[in-house]
């Protein structure tokens, strides 16, 4: 019940974000130089033909009214049709969503596992590993995903031929090839995320180790294993969850580049193509989808936080 209330409250509080983004997009689009009606009817149409098309497109109405009509259509699942392919935008987006979700889910798992392991090792062992994690954090954030992706292709696909150069095989077609086609994209997506997570894990584990209750447990004979794996980890997980949320949102952004490099038909590469082609309805739809994903990620973070922290759970 408390969880349900939390979900509702979070969803309500993220509505402004959705409206802001869609309104922003809408206003920007209305600034497009050139006249869509003129583009459709051509240079030689009569004034009446032109006016008819303008009315059909709703362009004769004031901007807020146009936005309202757009919103109403969106709520009916109608995001318009692609100017480029003529397909309904919703079906274009729905076809592409699974690709991005595979990539981002795999990227989250890989960077989460690798980052937490590295951070833990560095906190436990100290010495060289501490330096290594610091260097990784600096470099991981400095190396752009798209360039790192090319390096991975040059080594892992062109030279060693272990993985396909580009392309994406749907899971339903061939699970093994699906996995192989994801390895390099996931690695390039994860580099900076691993860096951030490893550093955060190390810092919050060390921070937790310095807290009073850990000393009390040591003094009263709790086992090392339990202190580290039950008590320190559980407490260190809290700040980590927040960071994980930020990382997930940054993965959404990085997916634009990674999907483009690997020619994966996902939401990110769609946004890039639509930008190049000035396919406005598709852009609007993609932005809406991505914003909804951001809202969902933040919701998941809040839920995870409230599961983990008894103080929030009770509130």
């Amino acid at each position, binding site marked *: 019940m408390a969880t349900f209330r939390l979900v509702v409250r979070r969803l309500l509080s993220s509505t*402004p*974000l959705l409206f*802001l*983004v869609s309104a*922003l*997009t809408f206003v*920007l689009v209305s*600034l497009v*130089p050139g006249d869509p009606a003129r583009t459709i009817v051509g240079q030689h149409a009569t004034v009446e033909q032109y006016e008819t098309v303008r009315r059909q497109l709703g362009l004769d109405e004031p901007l807020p009214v146009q936005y309202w009509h757009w919103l109403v259509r969106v709520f009916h699942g109608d995001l318009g049709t692609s100017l480029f392919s003529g397909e309904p935008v919703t079906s274009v987006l729905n076809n592409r969503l699974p690709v991005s979700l595979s990539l981002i889910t795999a990227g989250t798992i890989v960077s989460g596992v690798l980052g937490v392991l590295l951070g833990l090792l560095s906190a436990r062992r100290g010495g060289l590993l501490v330096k290594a994690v610091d260097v990784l954090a*600096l*470099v991981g*954030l*400095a190396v*752009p995903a*798209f*360039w790192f992706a*090319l*390096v991975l*292709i*040059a080594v892992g696909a*062109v*030279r060693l031929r272990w993985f396909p150069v580009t392309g994406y095989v749907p899971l339903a077609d061939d699970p093994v090839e699906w996995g192989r086609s994801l390895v390099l994209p996931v690695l390039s997506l994860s580099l900076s995320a691993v860096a951030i997570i490893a550093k955060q894990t190390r810092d919050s584990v060390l921070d937790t180790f310095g807290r*009073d*209750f850990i*000393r*009390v447990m*040591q*003094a*009263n*004979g*709790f086992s090392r294993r*339990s202190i580290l794996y*039950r*008590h320190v980890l*559980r*407490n260190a997980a809290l700040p980590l969850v927040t960071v994980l949320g930020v990382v997930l*949102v*940054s993965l959404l*952004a990085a997916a*634009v*580049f990674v999907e*483009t*490099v690997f020619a994966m038909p996902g939401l990110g590469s769609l*946004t*890039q193509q639509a*930008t*190049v082609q*000035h*396919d406005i309805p598709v*852009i609007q739809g*993609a*932005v809406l989808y*991505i*914003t909804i994903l*951001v809202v969902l990620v933040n919701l998941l973070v809040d839920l995870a936080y409230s599961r*983990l*922290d*008894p*103080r929030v759970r*009770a509130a």
Partner: protein
Amino acid sequence: MKQPTTPSAPRSRNRRPLIRRVLVRPAGALSLGWLVLLTVATLAAPLLTTHGPLDQDLGHVLSGPTADHLLGTDNLGRDLLSRLLFGGRSTLLAVGEALAVFLALGVTLGLASGFLGGWVDWLTVRTADLLFALPGIIIVLVVLSVFPGNLHAAMITFGVLGSPGIIRILRSQTLGIREELYVAAAKVAGLTRQQILRRHILPRLISTVIVQAALFAAIVVTIQAGLGFLGLGAQPPDPTWGGLVADASQALDRAPWMLVPSGIPLVLTVLALGSLGDAVRDAATEGWSVSRMTAPTDAPRTVRDDRRPAGTVTTNSTRSGTSALLSVRNLSIDIGGVPVVQEVSFDIAPGETVGVVGESGCGKSVTSLGILGLVPGGGRVAQGQVLFDGTDLVASPAARTQVRGTGIAYVSQEPMVALDPMFTVGRQLGEAVRRHERCDRREARSRVTELLDMVNIPDPAAVAGRHPHQLSGGMAQRVAIALALAGRPKLLIADEPTTALDVTVQAEILTLLRNLQADTGMAVLIVTHDWGVVADLCHRAVVMYAGQVVEAADVEEMFARPLHPYTAGLLAANPHRAREGEPLPTIPGTVPAPRDWPSGCRFAARCELADDRCAEPVTLTEPAPDRLSRCVRSQQLLAEGTS
């Protein structure tokens, strides 16, 4: 015109200018060097290159580095060094545009929000929070789809989208500074808002602004290259860094070398901006948070001067002889190479309660943790023995681990942070019980109830289901004591167990400790600065000053006739003995920090009775049977008393 005088902003002494402090750091100097070099080379590109960025040399396409083409050529034989330097110009411009917007918005709104408060603050924070949640690159793509190829629009947008980060930081810093005393004083002195902002607030924010600007510039460089790579920036054949990477991607199989000149300068630039930001931050905050206790600096001057041959102090073990449960002998503890506890010795007999008394900073807590081998702050036991039931815990880590919980248990000062906030009381107690008793869950549960009963918790079953944050301070301390009792210890170390509690609760906890000791027969070592606690509970007291034992005696004898001026001063300052209408006597001065310990008597500077003899190291003597004192006048004090 006369300016009102104002107190000046607090400044650390001997501070060199920020730029010098950044440059003395290798990372700072290297980063700044690279950025300056790159900027100059980019601006002077026409002078530095022999080939134009668009000149094609079709006889040498996709070549590696040669004397003619230092970084090689691309698929049209164009010189990569030239394209890199000319391409850097668009990067520079993009960073300039985005930074200008970022700083203009960020500094103005951050300052206004923090300084003015009210609706300005409310609106700014709300908007910033909304923008913060967006993936900026997506919005930039929308802008580029509307204004094709217009990188200026993209960079200005990106500057806007990046500003919430700096707005939040500057807002909270401004809020902090505004509340500080000297700004309040400046206001009283009649300065205008602009003057306060310009003179007192802006100077303090400069390093933060530089740090944020450097980190943001790093992101802009990446994003600008990314847009170029996606074909959304300047159009071919104009060179951009991102475009170079895109060219390289077309020739991955034939000329993987191209990845190097197209990517490495980009990575180095982002790296340089990032570590420049870190260097400025470190330089700006250097010396602010270095704890005196833990700083690993030069060895203190006086420490070893007064060292006597080991063993002279073991006299006080004569009292209980070999029958002592715990015998601490010549225990010295270092933290960060600085001795904080020196040659402390005392014994505790089975069932005995001993109080360790002294002001804060005398090494009481460190000593009690040192017994368990848990010195905080990376410290270590430098020498000495801790004999528990005849086994030296310093020499044997295995015995030490073994004894924790079952032989010696520990209760800390702050009950509210002594329990893991994530687990229920029952889970934590259950874990301790199962660890020590090796029993199954059912037995553990009934033992948990029993333990909670022992510490007088009214409804054990209900409390076991609660989390620490749902307990009151007194309740939490009872639970912490129950946790310590789980291993049926022979000795309980309680480090100021009542200091953090309300007075009424203090009395309850003390009564509980006394009853527990009577019931279980365990010995108790209680660290305290409260003579009431000593009088109430203890058989014997050990007084510590500046890391040394200065007096040890039976409580009644000590109260009747203290044999060290420090003990006498502490007793006189005891609020329990205060007489109505008279000011409470205090000991002038403060306990010296470990670094400042003199070679002679450490209390001499605060002592009314000090004379020339006190400049020499003073040893612990036994002026009367079972009484120890570290004072040159101990015989005199024994005969005459302190008053």
